[in-house]
């Protein structure tokens, strides 16, 4: 049971949140001009990082806000939370393979 610090409501248990996968994948604005490969890459591909991963969560049972989390996918340690649309904080992006 992770504890996630909602940037708005404060620390809450994992069960109040829903997961949104990798962060910072922007929806293409000109999808019409994309090849099938490029579109498929947007819809399906992701980096699935082992180590520090920038990901999206939403506080479903609380304020319903989306926000980003930097989390180590091996230790599950949460290194940072930050608002949607803002840049990730500087982190030691070590990879633990």
């Amino acid at each position, binding site marked *: *049971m*992770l504890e996630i610090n909602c940037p708005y409501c404060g620390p809450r248990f*994992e*069960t109040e949140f*829903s*997961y949104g*996968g990798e962060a910072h994948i922007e929806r293409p604005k000109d999808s019409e001009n994309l090849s*099938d*490969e490029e*579109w*498929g*890459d947007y*819809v*399906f*591909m*992701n*980096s*699935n*990082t*082992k180590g520090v*991963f920038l*990901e999206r969560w939403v506080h479903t049972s609380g304020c319903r806000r989306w926000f980003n989390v930097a*989390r180590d*996918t*091996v*230790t*599950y340690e949460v290194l940072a939370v930050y608002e949607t649309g803002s840049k990730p904080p500087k982190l030691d992006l070590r990879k633990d*393979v």
Partner: protein
Amino acid sequence: MKSRYSIFSLMRNALSYHEKWPEAWRSPEPKSSYDVVIVGGGGHGLATAYYLAKIHGIRNVAVIERGWLGGGNTGRNTTIVRSNYLWDESAGLYEHAMKLWEGLSQELNYNVMFSQRGVMNLAHNQQDLRDIARRVNANRLNGIDSEFLTPHQIKDLVPIIDLRGNGRYPVLGASNQRRGGTARHDAVAWGYARRADEHGVHIIQECPVTGFEIENGRVTGVQTAKGLIKAKKVGVVVAGHASVVAEMAGLRLPVVSHPLQALVSEPVKPVIDTVVMSNAIHAYISQSDKGELVIGAGVDKYVGYGQRGSLPVTEETLAAICELFPSLKRMRMMRQWGGIVDTCPDASPIISKTPVEGFFINCGWGTGGFKATPGSGWVFADTIANDRPHPLNEAFSLERFNSGYLVDEHGAAAVAH
């Protein structure tokens, strides 16, 4: 030539206090090059190596494993085997695996304890019933044994089930595959390893892969903790770490790795003979030959490489089990653990060539990997040997995520109305 396993060899060895048994497989140092290097020493990788040697005559093969054989999902799953998948493409692949399972102990001369005790999927609402009917019908027409069970028939097969589900999740029916069942997971890895070794395959444990040599778009070797190993072809089959290893070859995958947990009870005398699964309430249960109730749970929703599941999932799963089997409430959880499942958006695997020539990938099995082991190894070996997909895995290409030809085994995931 190794000694054959049998009751007679067992008796013979008993006379020498079991001190003369040969090694099940060797532990060689890696050669500088192989025709094929398989990355990943789980059931799928070992099966691939075995079939490459046995069927395709490619014996100059190494299996490279970062830890110990079968230490990934092979040794962490709930050992359910079935082939009653919905779509033709999946049915073809899993049924091929099922046929191989049915002769596997003899083929490997290693008792993998494949036990065809039947696998039941319960229906708890009207949409479940429609989905089950659709799947049972499709299975039969695909030549897969599959039947619909009424609640009464379910009770006959599983006397401890509570059909009322205490009112909240009544059991309205089930699909049943009698040829389905369970197998001894470790034995599958060990059996394939022993046979592959016998055919000349090198099994190299404790040897993490650190990168790939790629020249002009073609793979030429594997960088490992034990040095560079040249290879004409490389097959990657590393459940749980597909994205990590693929990235070393510059490939991105449509895969998300989730923690999946399972648990066993203390051993008791037989109480349940078949495998019972309920998708609606995320639980499946069988009883091992040792007497433990083996219970599979759902995944944690986030990316996780931690090989451990979270408590809320345990709670949800055991609440469901207690509801279906109220007499098991006093049983106790003896051990719980987690694996890492690589899931694809359409819940079907990838067994495919890649944009890197000579580099093949087999991944994305989600929770369905163990049951496919022999079939997966068989088609992957065929794909690697012939440099093109076998018809059985043609649909499971990486390309499908561009074309949209998905094999969506979430299938009729019930959406309420």
